[in-house]
């Protein structure tokens, strides 16, 4: 861990000014950044503590939910309106980390958390995400937690968030503010695939700060689930997770949304596959078919080959849960 300067601005404008320094990092809950600093993966010259910024409110206006960037994962998950109307979001948040971490971690920070790739965390190894151009040690290495979709020859890391998988299904918008002013980024365009620039996890521009996440009205009643499969029943990153939501009318699927976690550099959605469900009956044969479709281009790296089959089965099960209106319970770990 290195020495660094520290500022604690009171306004978004001051924070953005401070973040203009390319060696500055914003500190919110610190659940990831502090670890990265301890491992010498992040060595910021300036830490901009944004915890005093007025970004801590949860606003429900009409059918829309707007979550300030500094709202903690716990406060968001247990908010009565979120529990009642956006239970998929609550469920995904509660599937992640531990209560202590969720108390500290923030909404904006959750979007910006870095991968859990082992090599990214070990500065003595080659990693294009950490040290661009140094190579990817995970390819051919210990990679059972790595990507099966959308990876590149430069990087096979996955995004570790649970919450973001739900946000992908919910069609959220990320509100950001930066030197050029404010803008909104559709969630699907927020995180990016590694390509040949894996050091970039997302499409934020230099100096931009997430201020809020906006989520439109839900349209699928009780036909949703967040199913997370991992190496232990709590406090582990997903091997594969599935957020699924269905609109069912008169016994047929009117609309479907499916996002996968733990399989790609970003929450993975396949709109074409989702659309293939329209007009179909919500039954296992259909779910298995769409699962196959979503994984059609999946590629294993050796140790993670199993994820292709696991993801296929997880999608089918998640859709079955959603169709039955029996979302996965994150406290009782029994999978229905």
């Amino acid at each position, binding site marked *: *861990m290195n020495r660094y300067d520290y500022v604690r601005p009171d306004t978004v404008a001051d924070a953005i000014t401070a973040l203009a320094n390319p060696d500055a990092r914003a500190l919110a809950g610190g659940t990831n950044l502090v670890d990265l600093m301890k491992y010498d993966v992040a060595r910021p010259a300036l830490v901009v503590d944004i915890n005093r910024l007025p970004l801590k409110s949860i606003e429900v206006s009409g059918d829309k939910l707007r979550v300030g960037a500094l709202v903690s994962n716990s406060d968001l998950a247990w908010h009565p309106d979120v529990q009642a109307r956006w239970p998929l979001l609550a469920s995904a948040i509660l599937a992640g980390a531990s209560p202590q971490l969720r108390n500290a971690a923030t909404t904006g920070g959750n979007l910006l958390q870095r991968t859990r790739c082992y090599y990214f965390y070990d500065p*003595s190894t080659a990693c294009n995400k950490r040290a661009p151009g140094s190579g990817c040690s995970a390819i051919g290495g210990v990679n*059972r937690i790595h990507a099966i979709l959308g990876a590149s020859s430069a990087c096979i890391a996955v995004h570790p968030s649970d919450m973001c998988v739900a946000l992908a299904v919910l069609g959220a918008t990320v509100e950001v503010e930066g030197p050029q002013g404010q803008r909104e980024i559709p969630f699907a365009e927020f995180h990016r695939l590694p390509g040949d620039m894996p050091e970039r996890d997302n499409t934020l521009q230099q100096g931009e700060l997430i201020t809020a996440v906006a989520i439109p009205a839900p349209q699928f009643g009780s036909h949703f689930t967040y199913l997370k499969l991992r190496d*232990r029943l709590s406090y582990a990153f997903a*091997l594969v997770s599935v957020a699924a939501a269905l609109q069912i009318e008169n016994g047929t699927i009117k609309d479907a949304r499916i996002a996968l976690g733990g399989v790609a550099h970003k929450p993975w959605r396949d709109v074409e596959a989702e659309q293939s469900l329209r007009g179909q009956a919500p039954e296992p044969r259909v779910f298995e078919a769409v699962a196959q479709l979503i994984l059609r281009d999946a590629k294993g790296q050796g140790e993670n080959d*199993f994820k292709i089959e696991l993801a296929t089965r997880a999608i089918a099960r998640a859709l079955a849960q959603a169709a039955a209106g029996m979302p996965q319970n994150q406290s009782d770990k029994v999978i229905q």
Partner: protein
Amino acid sequence: MSVIEQLHVGRPTSRVDGRLKVTGKAQYAAEYSTNGMLYGYIVSSTIAAGHISSMDLTAARRMPGVVEIFTHENRGKAAWLDRKWRDDVAPPGHPFRPLHSDRILFDGQPVALVVAETFEAARDAASLIAIAYEADPHCTELARKRNEAYVPPEKRSGIPPPPDPRGAAEQAYADAPVKISRDYRINPEHHNPMEMFGSTCVYEQGGKLTIYDKTQGSQNAQGYVTSVFGLSGDDVRVVNHYVGGAFGSGLRPQHQLFFAVMASLELERSVRVTMTRKQMFHIGYRPDNYQTVSLAADRDGRLQSIMHDAVAATSHYEDYQEAVVNWSGLMYHCDNVKLTYQLAKLNTATPCDMRAPGAAIGVTAMECALDELAYELGIDPLEMRRINFAQKDENTNKEFTSKALMECYRAGAAAFGWERRAQQPRAMRDGRQLVGWGVSTGIWDAFLQKAQASATLKQDGTLEVATAASDIGTGTWTILTQIGADAFGLPLEDVQARIGDSSLPMSPVEGGSWTAASNGSAVQAACDALKQSLFKLATKMANSPLADASFDDVALEGRRIFRKDDPARGLAISEIMHAAGLSELTEQGKVSPSLIQMMNYISYTHSAVFAEVQVDEDLGVVRVTRVVCAAAAGRILNPKTARSQILGGVVMGIGMALHEEGMTDHRLGKIMNANFAEYHIPAHADVEDIEVIFVDEQDDKVSPIGVKGLGEIGIVGTAAAVANAIFHATGKRVRDFPITIDKILTAPPLS
């Protein structure tokens, strides 16, 4: 033993140190501070083999607050002779010497120590040290070294090598009607106690050292320090009052101790050195291993042949050994047995004892294999174990001092409801969850070690008992207090135990499940001697009401000694002390194993472990919904702390079955998941109902106080019971531990 009713021993008693621990007042090694203390930060190698070609310390030295940087080029004075570096539990070989030379023997090897005025400065400076290496080829992959495995030429003290073969195992195997031969592997595990390794070395006037160390043996650590640095025992005191877990990793002195003392001596300052969690993955581990178990039986299930071969990892510099296969020759009756145990060298740190070393992996393989054989035979797996019950230790031809294992089977099965089990795999389910029940036997040594203690009566009639034992969370503080309290009929608050200090009476390291039996018996002996002395003083007093009493006529209670037949006739202890002109009265006690008895008898702790799992039919997700562990462990001093011991062992066994695994990138020779996020141990959600049963077991030979010890038995057999339950649920045998989702998913289905 006390002649009056046992008020404390045998009763569920809360920890006497519990309040201190939960209020943060119990100080651990890295929590001691002194004025002007310096902080050391260890720099670790990033290659697995080779040597350091250059180190650039320029930027690090410029860091404000840095006092010194030690490397192999300026390491402080330390012993030259190899044997001076050997501690009490060292395996054969050449003990690792930090900063001894430019050679790199394993990834994560300490290569420098930065000492600074603050921890932060030391850590920051450490990150600025640039090291260039010249790498040699390395191998961390046991599979590639199996063909070079060897029988260790020098045996590790205290570890019995496999017994000589008996009967004709190969022939019996060939001739038997029912047989199986299976390969098992248990991936390497890391101890990961909650408390990080740390040493605070307080440099006192005249160069005397008081060292607060995280260790399972203050006297072992003290002996190491005096030997390595050529110091007198009078000048070095090691204190380990509280130890936040260790599981064996604190048996040997770890290198933060060397660094704290070396820097302290060189700089003539007090120094604290702590390890990071990541560094704790490079200080010894449960070795990687491959095992083959071949079993044959007649059609009634009687074992005709047992063959168990193990190859386990060790380092290039020491031959770490543990008893892996021996258990297979003594758990069950069988006339034809052949057991082999070999080592293979890898570029890793030397493995070290980890909870039930040897048994935890060896018994897992044996108990899974026995389960497989039971299915081949169509015999209930529990019945299979009863059929082959061993009446004596057939490895050594000795009688057991006690073995209430049949009662463990009965009581455990009854509590679990085993009789309702369907024999066929995949026959029980709950919705989409396949339900399986598995069983395993557990076994561990019941050792008595040489130990000494003192017991001291204070003028006010309160008692102090002392021995250099350690309490790594096991309850040692409490049981020694209970024993002292019962000896003198005192309430617990009138007894002060003193442990965790090398200046106290001689104690072995806290390991092997021997502390309660050994140190407990020594305290009992000291108390018995002290009672005799007190009684003599009492009878010698003028007009003593006990003048005509014999020792057997008297009892102690309420800080008095009195006639049992007339409690009014007696004396307050304070009166006796006053009359004798004593401020305190001390006696010593000691125990050592009886060599004569050991010629004919041997002692083990036993258990029967029953596990229920639910496995998702499609997804392979496992939940361990119930475990019943019935243990026969002699006399139970404190059912509350005893139960905790078993609970912890069972949880660790669940971890072995499902979670724990150090993952190495063999191209780099590096452990990649060296942190608590990625090295998985069971979380609360992974632990459901665990029931602990202690069956009645009287044993007047195992130790003077009839105690066997409980530190290890909870883990032994648990992983096998879970694995056997997974087979029963799914019809899939996974023989590669931990049994993760991917292995269940890809295992071939029941044919």
